[in-house]
């Protein structure tokens, strides 16, 4: 086989190799920026609301704030309009608790459409919805008790 043919084969193979690598990168790129944002999620997110100009009027019966009902800081509250809300002992938490059994970044409350979720952020002592320790984002309604450490929080209207 001639020298030139072998050279062309080598270049062709290297081209295939790089086409593969570049395609992989382009898939990663589209994965990063091209993710589809569903309308429902956008409606609940603060950014989406700003886009609409005025905050959407809360539906009747929809919760408006998160309240500490039991524990070391009873009465501490955070408006759900600022969601997602961070709960923990850290200074960046929306609801800052002085409870020794609460982690620095313990849990987070966020919205998806009309539903509110609580999500544990890998805390030491766990987050409980009712009697159950949650392992993934869990929907909560008005009045459902969420326990972190020795503190109990609720969504209120």
């Amino acid at each position, binding site marked *: 086989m001639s020298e030139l043919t072998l050279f062309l084969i080598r270049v062709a193979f290297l081209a295939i190799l790089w086409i593969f690598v570049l395609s992989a990168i382009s898939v990663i790129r589209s994965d990063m920026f091209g*993710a589809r944002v569903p309308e429902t999620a956008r409606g609940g997110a603060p950014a989406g609301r700003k886009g609409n100009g005025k905050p959407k009027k809360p539906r009747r019966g929809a919760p408006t704030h998160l309240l500490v009902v039991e524990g070391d800081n009873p009465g501490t509250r955070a408006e759900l309009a600022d969601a997602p809300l961070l709960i923990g002992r850290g200074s960046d938490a929306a609801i800052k608790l002085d409870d020794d059994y609460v982690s620095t970044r313990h849990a987070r409350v966020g919205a998806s459409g009309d539903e509110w979720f609580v999500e*544990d952020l*890998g805390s030491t002592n766990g987050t409980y919805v009712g009697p159950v320790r949650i392992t993934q*984002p869990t929907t909560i*309604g008005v009045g459902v008790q969420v*326990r972190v450490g020795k503190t109990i929080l*609720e969504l209120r209207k």
Partner: protein
Amino acid sequence: MSQTGTLMGFVHRRRRGAELFLLVLALAVGIGAYAAVGLGLEGQVPADIVGYGGWLTALIVAAHVTVRIVAPYADPVLLPLVAALNGFGLAILRRLDITYEALGDPHTFARQQLVWMTVGVVLFIVTLVLMRDHRVLQRFTYTAGLAGIVLLILPFLPLIGREINGARIWINVAGFSFQPGEVAKVMLVIAFSGYLVLHRDALALAGRRVVFVDLPRGRDLGPIMAMFGISMMILVLQNDLGSSLLFFGLFLAMLYVATERPGWLVVGAALFGAGALAAYTFVDNVQNRFNFWLHPLDYYDDSPGSFQLVEALFGQGWGGLIGRGFGDGFPERVPFAYSDFIISTIGEELGLTAVMAIVLCYGLIVERALRIALISRDGFGKLMAVGLGAIFALQVFVVIGGVTGLIPLTGLTTPFLSYGGSSLVANWVVIALLLRISDQARRPAPRLDPVDDSAADSEHTQVVKLR
């Protein structure tokens, strides 16, 4: 492990079509390399290309279909990257087989590797099908730690333990050689993540500050230090430098990610420095490797000499930018061209262009692992993805860095490329674990017990107090 803005912010697409597209390209890389090897060495497309290509395609399609069914939201890039690397590695082994046969020293590395790849893909499928949620692994934290240590001890046992090339890391059961350390790696990642996810706050916050570093309490650090110390001791006794480096780096990376304390990196660097100095002073082998690295040409003719490294460097230098082409290099001059030094074979025959593509592929695998860790919703999955990604990163850095003369050479396999069944099988399982975690992470948030509108509107709904 900060979680920023990924909470239900957007929904990931499934991207299975993109995966299929990339897999076709990956197969083109694998089968194209095989054809190019035949054309370069024998002047014709190999006769068995249909059977070989068919087998490779069948394996990849089986893996893809499994992912489609049981992990539809999994990362679309990992499987194609791995398929391309594995196919490429098979072609390189085939190329070496042909040369070894011409020299009168026949090997069937490629054929055996294809068998191991089949085993690997089968285990990949089994892992994905049987394990629908990676969090069940958290239950086996201590079991996994114990299993990892037992696996590391296995080569010391009489009858089944084997010492090959000065390292006692092999077992031999029913005619099959196996490196249990490759599986132990995965076990220890599971054990570390299971332990750290429960104790990371205690490790990060409780304890005293000594000089620059917050030292955690002994009872928090004890168990993990024990696991780590035992495995390091075993590896040192086995004379397996590469793996000890890998475990050390893995341990440090996971501790750093779990506690978010940069102090660990300082402590780790200090410990590494002290350890390296001690090893340099007391272990001849380490001293030699340093000397070979600094002055490779001076030790070319010595008996434990730098012959192999120098030949590999010559080969890569001769390969230049686009290489000599398949069949026009002399990779057989490097004794371990099929395992640790496979990168130098690629560098010689396909040049820097191909080596860069390979390194980029590994980089993308690590990037995907870290991305999975970022978007994962549970701490255990995060830590596991980081640990598995760190294994790839460290392994590739240590071995490619060693072969190219960047750092002193320590023996480790190049994941998916090198000949070696244990490593290949273990790495396929690692990829299955990563895909499982990513499937969980990218899946849209499940809607558990949807709030009934009428109930939510009713003022009379009473909440039963639970405490």
